[in-house]
């Protein structure tokens, strides 16, 4: 049994690749930020959603470059790539089911819990920042007079 554990050869890699990926990551981040600035104060709900979608795609692209090049996964054996990437597919249903049920929970409450619905229509006067905790305290006072579910133990 040979003891040639040593460092494996670096297929690809090298400083030029690192430089290239750094630039790509920076550019992607700058585009994300530009999109973020563009969204500020935007009224068009549909466009905002589209931009958010674009930002999430850019996020995934960044993740791809970090995992693929910085973490060197792209230069590993294909089987290793598969054993790491394939289980991550579990996230697809994980995300869809959780978010869908969250959304459904909101619809349920908006339909059957008038208090919940009402709360999301009352505008609160804007408070000056800096008064430590005061705003939160006031908010808590107004919200907990709920006629909602009564939890009665003992």
């Amino acid at each position, binding site marked *: 049994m040979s003891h040639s*554990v040593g460092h*494996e050869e670096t297929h690809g890699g090298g400083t030029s690749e690192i430089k290239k990926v750094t630039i790509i990551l920076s550019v992607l981040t700058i585009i994300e930020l530009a999109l973020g600035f563009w969204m500020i104060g935007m009224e068009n709900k549909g466009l905002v959603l589209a931009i958010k979608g674009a930002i999430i795609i850019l996020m995934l692209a960044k993740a791809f470059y970090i995992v693929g090049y910085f973490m060197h996964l792209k230069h590993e054996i294909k089987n290793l790539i598969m054993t790491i990437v394939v*289980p991550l597919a579990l996230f697809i249903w*994980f995300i869809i089911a959780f978010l869908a*049920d969250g959304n459904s929970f909101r619809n349920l409450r908006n339909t059957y819990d008038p208090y919940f619905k009402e709360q999301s229509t009352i505008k609160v006067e804007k408070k000056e920042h800096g008064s430590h905790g005061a705003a939160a305290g006031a908010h*808590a*006072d107004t919200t*907990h007079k709920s006629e909602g579910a009564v939890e009665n*133990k*003992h």
Partner: protein
Amino acid sequence: MSNEAVVHAHGAVTTHEGHGDHHHEHHHHETFITKYVFSQDHKMIAKQFLITGMVWAVLGGLMSVLFRLQLGYPDATFPWLEDILGKWAKGGRITPEAYYALVTTHGTVLVFFVLTAGLSGTFANFLIPLQVGARDMASPFMNMLSYWFFFAASIVMLSSMFVETGPFSGGWTAYPPLSALGDASPGSKIGMDMWLISMALFVVSSLLGGLNYIATVLNMRTKGMSMTRMPLTIWALFFTAVLGVLSFPVLFSGFILLIFDRNFGTSFYLSDIFINGVGALPNEGGSAILYQHLFWFLGHPEVYIILLPAMGMVSEILSVNSRKPIFGYMAMIGSLFAIAILAFLVWAHHMFVTGLNPFLGSIFVLLTLLIAVPSAIKVFNWLTTLWRGNIRFTPGMMFAIGFVSLFISGGLTGIWLGNSALDIHLHDTYFVIAHFHIVMGVASMFGMFAGIYHWFPKMYGRYLNNTMGYIHFWVTIAGAYLIFWPMHYEGLAGMPRRYYDYSIWESFKQFAELNRFISTVAMIVFAVQLLFLFNFFYSIFKGRKVTTLNPWGATTLEWTTPIKPGHGNWVGEIPEVHRWAYDYGKDGKEFIAQTTPVGADESHH
């Protein structure tokens, strides 16, 4: 370009680098501490897991006897109960608080400490290196830590039973708000904090173990041991480890959010809550359902973490003792894989009646019912393995067959429960109790017993007593059916689980006799488990000695080691593997060990 050259182009990283040749002769000094306490030998760690698991099984079983006493004899008083439980059994009757604490701790302990740590902790540790041909785990040190984190979790859980307000009593699933608010019940106070600490330690233990099992199976296989030559035990334990590594972190996140809700005034899981004597809580905007999603994202894979090791061991034991190759080896692997994937996709079938979106629920129904396919493949393959086999009814084999029986009986009711419409009637009734106790609880215990009876000779170099083994088997299987079969009828009649006293309910009074019967059988079955414990510890020291290397005539690698293997398992070179693990009854030979090279005139299987 030759094949060799292709391989070498990748640079050779060999496996057994950590423990190379210096293990051939095993002479380095061992003290009592390094051999029996802080041991890094996978076989000793396996025994530590097993015996700790047994201690918990006795405690958890005793708890079930105590609350069955309440359920079977709701009006009777037993003064001796007050002697042992003090204020928890005032006047000789278990108090409601104590009843809920017992039910909760019974569930937590049996699911996590016995059937996760005790089962896969024991057999993954024991069998993986022995059956893939490795000197030890990839990282023996992390393996040792894995056990000691489990031990710490055990100590914390045990201590929580002795605090003034009692252990956690809101059910093993720890749903908020009972688990999130100290004011909700006595058991929600310090007992719940300790429960969380204990479970967090347990998650760490299971991650350390799981990473090790995966790395060992992938990287440490001996020469010739390709993935499709591995015994099914290893495949099952491998998938178990994958399930644990990917799902326990989600539970961990859920627990962290719960800790914040308990201690730092957040409201991740809390909304619209009013407590008697405290008033309305300021916590708004959270969702208790979110916790259930996070919990069951672990909780459902956890069911398979419990079941898969039993399936793997049963496949191996059935094949060895039928003297036949396992039927459909690749189909077995495929169905294990399918179960492992589906395990992650079906969690919300535990939540059909929580207000889960019905459309989403219907997708979960579909995915849930899909599990029937790989499960059925496995069942038919086990049955066809037995078919026309030359069966040896050793105690291990009896338990393996018992496992198949229980898995069928309990699995069929799973098809009922998987339907969201039926679940409206059946959820949270004794039907559910019966279903999961048979299919997951008792079946996995049977897998565990089968494993213990089968590999005891390898563990201790002695046999367990057969007569006691047969008594153990017959009483346990008869008892399991007598306890849980009637519960189906109670559940169909709508009898809810977790109630303290059914005799005050007009609709459930009719079951008083039946409940007493169930309780009586439960006590008898518990007593027989004590017989098994006696057999186990007696046989370690006084059992009949193993005199041949391979007492069962099995093909797998663990039987090529010395009768009592030292740390490093094999004296000299690790044997090379030339064939799959199931060459039984081939070419007129009773069995051909994996280490035997393929002969020139050998037939193909």
